[in-house]
């Protein structure tokens, strides 16, 4: 019995009165939605991904797009997604792939947390007139200071600091590999990181030589496939990050399709041209916490203990205990990636159903580390679906030192979150290796947009802090007293250690 086709997801139409027949939609759509037939532009809506490239480039605003033009019989349980997934799997017998972050309909906790401001009894601080300090150091800090007497009888500091990364803003750019995204996307972000005094992750794709000028602002990643890793790579980074897991797909590895492994990608990753790059689910030398401790130490030894080493884990149920174990190693920071974290490609069932949201993870990790007296041993970097400066401020108030942005940085370069990254045809020149598409993203322009975004959030964070009467980020960190929950249940409030609005 034939299953037939599932209804098209989008319907694209052209207002023929407006259209000037310039053909830019045809040129711009890498998915082949438009084609010319004589003097007419024909549309194949089924090919559309809603990347909105055509809409953005149409000089006459003639193109419109509707989602779900065909309705199913409505049913509260058998949603459109549920039915279509079954149809797809009945046909293919395979795992369903999906891109970007968690698309399930669960409410965001961030949206139900409210920030505080001063009135009367303490003055708010105007960031335009008074200093506002956002400088953040990522890395191990001593838990107390020690002084010693010199022979001359003077007192001097005996405590030595471990290497830390100095950030001018608590916003960093998370790990998205060259290969998954284009060189121009990497260049844009690297320039922006340098300009804004922050850092970006390389992802598990090695470090392309064109990024060497920005290596002082790069965090190099060591993931389970070890792609691109050698001692030269480690030494180039300002810090090293061991990736154990990722919020979008905790517990499983990664897969870069061979089509994306171009000559440059192959050279940078140190893998054969056109071969699939498969990162295994676990690191094959890490089967318990003490193996991780050894890897952290090995990386430190290889770089003469000059670089901070981070460990990134997905926010899973037991995240606090795992982070506490990492804090007892020589690691300098723990990166927690929440369940709304993005990805180029993940099995949909993982993306939407595995792991916990970042808000609860930050709260429980910070609490556990404080209980164990190890909060100063590691910095906490939170990531996974950070959409704006409010998410940033709330993350820090819950206890994070800094955040990683990922999808937000891509959107600032043009991404419209269509979720087809894994197909390698990104019309915005971001998640693709096809040179004609990559060329669409100008690294100078891209860098300006990414750094504008970071500047804008930084300004907003300053204003939020000033309104709360706080002039230094240290006093925002873990300051859950300045958060209130609204329409959150008692259980969540207890985990977050946040009072109810009005309380």
């Amino acid at each position, binding site marked *: 019995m034939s299953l037939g086709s599932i209804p098209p997801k989008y319907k694209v139409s052209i207002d023929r009165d407006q259209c000037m027949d310039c053909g830019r939609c045809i040129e711009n759509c890498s998915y082949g939605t438009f084609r010319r037939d004589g003097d007419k532009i024909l549309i194949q809506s089924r090919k559309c991904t809603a990347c909105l490239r055509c809409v953005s480039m149409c000089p006459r605003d003639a193109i419109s797009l509707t989602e779900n033009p065909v309705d199913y019989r409505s049913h509260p349980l058998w949603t459109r997604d549920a039915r279509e997934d079954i149809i797809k799997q009945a046909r293919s017998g395979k795992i369903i792939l999906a891109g970007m972050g968690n698309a399930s309909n669960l409410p965001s906790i961030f949206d139900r947390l409210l920030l505080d401001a*001063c009135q*009367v*009894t*303490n*003055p708010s*601080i105007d960031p335009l007139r*008074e*200093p506002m*300090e956002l*400088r953040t*150091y990522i890395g191990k*800090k*001593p*838990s*107390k*200071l020690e002084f010693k007497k010199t022979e001359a009888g003077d*007192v*001097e*500091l005996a*405590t030595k*600091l471990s290497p*830390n990364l100095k950030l001018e803003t608590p916003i960093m750019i998370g790990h998205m590999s060259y290969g998954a995204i284009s060189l121009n996307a990497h260049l844009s972000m690297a320039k922006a990181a340098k300009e804004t005094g922050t850092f970006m992750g390389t992802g598990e794709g090695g470090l392309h030589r064109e990024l060497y000028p920005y290596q002082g602002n790069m965090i190099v990643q060591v993931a389970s496939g070890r792609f691109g890793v050698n001692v030269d790579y480690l030494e180039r980074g300002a810090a090293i990050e061991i990736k154990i897991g990722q919020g979008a797909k905790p517990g499983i590895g990664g897969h870069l399709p061979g089509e994306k492994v171009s000559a440059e990608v192959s050279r940078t990753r140190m893998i054969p041209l056109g071969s699939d790059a498969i990162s295994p689910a676990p690191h094959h030398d890490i089967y318990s916490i003490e193996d991780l401790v050894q890897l952290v130490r090995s990386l430190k030894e290889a770089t003469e203990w000059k670089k901070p080493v981070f460990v990134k884990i997905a926010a899973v149920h037991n995240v606090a205990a795992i982070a506490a174990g990492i804090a007892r190693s020589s690691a300098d920071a723990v990166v927690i990636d929440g369940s709304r974290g993005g990805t180029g490609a993940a099995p949909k069932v993982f993306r939407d159903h595995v792991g916990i949201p970042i808000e609860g993870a930050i709260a429980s990790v*910070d609490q556990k580390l*404080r*209980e164990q*007296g190890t*909060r*100063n041993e590691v910095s906490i970097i939170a990531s996974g679906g950070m959409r704006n400066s409010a998410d940033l401020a709330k993350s820090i*108030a819950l*206890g994070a030192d800094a955040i990683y942005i990922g999808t937000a940085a891509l959107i600032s370069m043009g991404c419209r979150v269509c979720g087809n990254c894994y197909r390698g045809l990104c019309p915005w020149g971001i998640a693709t290796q096809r040179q004609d598409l990559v060329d669409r993203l100008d690294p100078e322009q891209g860098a300006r947009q990414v750094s504008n975004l970071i500047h804008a959030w930084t300004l907003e964070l300053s204003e939020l802090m000033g309104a*709360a*009467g*706080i*002039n*230094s980020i*240290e*006093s*925002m*960190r*873990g*300051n*859950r*007293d*300045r958060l209130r929950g609204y329409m959150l249940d008692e259980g969540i409030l207890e985990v977050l250690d946040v009072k109810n609005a009005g309380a």
Partner: protein
Amino acid sequence: MCGIIGVIDKTRSRMDGSKIKAALSLMNERGSGDGAGYAAYGIYPDYADCYALHVFFDNMAEPKTKVEEILHYWGTVVHQEEIPTFEQPGLKRVHTPWRYFFKPFDDMIGGKVGSEKDIIKHIVMEVNSSIDGALVFSSGKNMGVFKASGWPEDVANFYRIEDYEGYIWLAHNRYPTNSPGWWGGAHPFNLLDWSVVHNGEITSYGTNQRYVEGYGYKCTLLTDTEVVAYLFDLLGRQHELHTETVVKALAPPFWDEIDRMPPAKEGLYRTIRMTYGSALMNGPFAIVVASNEGIVGFTDRIKLRPLVVGENGDMLYISSEESAIRVIDPEVKNIRTPRAGEPIIGRFNA
């Protein structure tokens, strides 16, 4: 708002409380009649080697029995008595102030309890967080806090503060804002030798509270000032930092200033800020902290609350207002207003 005073006689000559009362009452504009208090050092020379535990009891039955169960487990009560009080028309008695002169057992020290002072800290945290109807509000040696809800004169007369003689005095006139006007919420706040009077509101309270709670302190008094006493105990006593260093941790210079310092100094200040970021106090405040070694006054990093300093020979005065200092000592010299975050330290002569 609130008005604060700190006075030290560096020769350890003792003065009675009458002038402090007059000075504090002068600043009634800064209060609301909801709380006032005094701390005096050197007042119990006969019991100088005992910890003077001042306790508010709601009644003399169950809470007192429970407190004494804890005290008898940890040490010996050398002497106990009701703190003498005298009814005032403008002051409603809601607790009975009591004092114990207490010595911990030496052999209880060990494990997590590293010293006599750790025992006292533990007792204070235990009583205040777990016994209804009892609150230890003063726990140092040869010193005591006297406080209640009311105007400064009424509180002073209630305790007959002029009957006590001390070489350090702190005083506070309260206008409660972010917490209720109750006896436990009046200043000074005390733990062990540390006493704090504070004008302002600590916007970093949540951060500071999470930080000290990681070290076994329990914030139970519903007000932000309490945390300052614990920060001083943690940094000054447990981490053995000098007072100047403690102040530089709580109200550090801005990064821009640190960046301009010569390398060794820059390294020191950067390390202090990185290590004690969670101890940094934000928001408007002027604070005077006393211990058995002296007093220190300082303000927040952008000086959003007033602080005035005066000297006269071996006397050092710190207050919200110059006029209050002049009431104590009309001949006061070197009146000045310190810069934001600058520690003003008064120590006993060697």
